[in-house]
């Protein structure tokens, strides 16, 4: 490459450079990078055709690679241009939204980011337009193979193998220097698993990978004691993972008698190995956790607890025999209490007649007291009633007398006069005298007077003795 034109015309640099070197410079790298960008941007803008892989979006730009069988180039599209491309691709005239594996035609030119003291430089083909040319041969070929394996039933064979919960020996095929190895060891340690681990190191990228992995899988199966195998590698572009879509590898795994756990790439990438394996995991850590299905430390604690529970059940089952004497004693106590209760009941029944008589006597006394009290109350009532009646009668008599006196005063006077007229005293007062015997008997005849001899003569004012003369 020739020196960028602006630098060739610049003044001679202050630093003398490498002694003896015939090359121009040294130039400050920033100036050189800027000149390089100008030079690259001056290249003619063109159209390129190839397979779109490793498509990823950043904040301001979308990046991908354009590949074919002989080479590749990094590409970048400003987000604004990418949105326009997507809008066109989604329209009626578009060939579909561009995704990984598609054959595309891009338009643009070379560009260079010169970097800085704190950022790295990068080359990219600055894409201004893109057209989908059709589905990429790579993905189409993989899809055809997947369908063929499925038609042969090879996608199901591994899933029918029983996956042991607690394998004693695990085989792992991965890159010897890859991070997947450390991730698997750490995950197994967290599980508390410390069994036998057989490492089958193999390349996990490039054309040598698939045959080496096939050979390692065969060796693991031949060892015999391996109960589960893990095939693992970290993430990568689809092209990096192409070796895991190898037909021979996939057929080998499908027919293997040992369950295989695949952990290839990230969860967004899916290879044919993921389809034929017994279990497909997104990371080596998950693959290790799938290989050892339990937390061994917790399982040990649970086994201890289960043993204790079984001991308790066994002890409780035998306990009734040991407690028979106690039960007999309790039965005797129950019997004794029952007899005492019966005796108390009989004693109560024997006292019942006397209690009954006493209750009757008390009741009769009570009734007698109540009758007496009732009689007294009745007599008092009648007495009061009689008194009230007597008082009423007295008042009535008085009232009648008064009324009579008021109504018949003349009749009384007449009667009084009549009575007075018959009074002998009135006759004596008129000059008459009454002859009486000494005993006071009236002597009304002369014969009787002669017989009596001693007489008494009663005048109005006094009585004087008298003698009948012969």
């Amino acid at each position, binding site marked *: 490459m020739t020196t960028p034109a602006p630098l060739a015309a610049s003044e001679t640099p202050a630093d003398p450079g490498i002694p003896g070197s015939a090359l121009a410079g040294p130039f400050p790298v920033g100036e050189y990078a800027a000149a390089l960008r100008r030079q690259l941007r001056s290249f003619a803008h063109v159209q390129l055709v190839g397979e779109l892989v490793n498509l990823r979006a950043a904040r301001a730009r979308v990046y991908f690679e354009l590949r074919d069988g002989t080479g590749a180039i990094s590409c970048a599209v400003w987000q604004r241009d990418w949105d326009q491309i997507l809008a066109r691709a989604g329209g009626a005239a578009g060939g579909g939204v561009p995704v990984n594996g598609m054959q595309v035609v891009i338009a643009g030119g070379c560009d260079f980011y010169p970097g800085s003291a704190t950022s790295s430089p990068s080359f990219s083909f600055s894409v201004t337009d893109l057209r989908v040319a059709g589905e990429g041969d790579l993905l189409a070929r993989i899809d055809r193979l997947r369908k063929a394996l499925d038609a042969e039933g090879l996608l199901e064979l591994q899933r029918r193998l029983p996956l*042991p*919960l*607690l*394998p*004693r020996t695990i*085989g792992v095929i991965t890159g010897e220097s890859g991070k997947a190895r450390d991730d698997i060891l750490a995950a*197994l*340690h967290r599980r*508390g*698993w*410390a*069994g*036998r*681990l*057989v*490492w*089958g*190191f193999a390349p996990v990228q490039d054309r040598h990978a698939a045959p080496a992995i096939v050979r*390692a899988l065969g*060796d*693991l199966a*031949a*060892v015999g004691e391996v109960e589960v195998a893990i095939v693992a590698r970290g993430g990568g572009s689809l092209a990096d993972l192409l070796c895991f879509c190898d037909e021979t590898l996939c057929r080998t795994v499908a027919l293997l008698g040992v369950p295989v756990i695949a952990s290839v790439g990230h969860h967004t990438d899916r290879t044919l190995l993921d389809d034929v394996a017994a279990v497909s995991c997104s990371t080596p850590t998950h693959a290790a956790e799938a290989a*050892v*299905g339990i937390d*061994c430390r917790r*399982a*040990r604690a649970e*086994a201890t607890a*289960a*043993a204790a*529970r*079984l*001991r308790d*059940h*066994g002890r409780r*089952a*035998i306990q*009734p025999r040991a407690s028979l004497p106690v039960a007999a004693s309790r039965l005797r106590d129950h019997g004794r209490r029952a007899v005492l209760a019966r005796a108390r009941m009989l004693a109560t029944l024997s006292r019942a007649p006397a209690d009954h008589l006493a209750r009757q006597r008390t009741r009769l006394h009570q009734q007698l007291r109540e009758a007496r009290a009732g009689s007294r109350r009745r007599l008092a009532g009648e007495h009061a009633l009689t008194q009230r009646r007597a008082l009423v009668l007295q008042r009535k008599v008085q009232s009648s007398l008064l009324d009579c006196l008021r109504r018949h005063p003349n009749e009384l006077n007449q009667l009084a006069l009549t009575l007075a007229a018959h009074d002998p005293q009135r006759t004596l007062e008129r000059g008459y005298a009454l002859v009486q015997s000494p005993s006071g008997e009236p002597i009304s005849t002369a014969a009787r007077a002669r017989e009596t001899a001693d007489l008494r003569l009663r005048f109005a004012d006094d009585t004087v003795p008298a003698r009948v003369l012969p």
Partner: protein
Amino acid sequence: MTESQSMTYETAAARVEEIIRRLDSGEASLDETLALVQEGKTLIELCAGELESVGAALEELRLDELVARLEDETP
């Protein structure tokens, strides 16, 4: 080989859980209880043995070395 010896860890662990559920239900007779307790103890010993075999110390082997050793041992 007895039945318990042919059992895997997961089969034995599942049977122990089943036994404990049966015992916890209180429906087992005395004879059944004693038989289940004995069976459970045997299975727990099996599980404990399996856990013990993967709990002592991690043993790491290289597949190529293991294959070479096996090939050497093969007559």
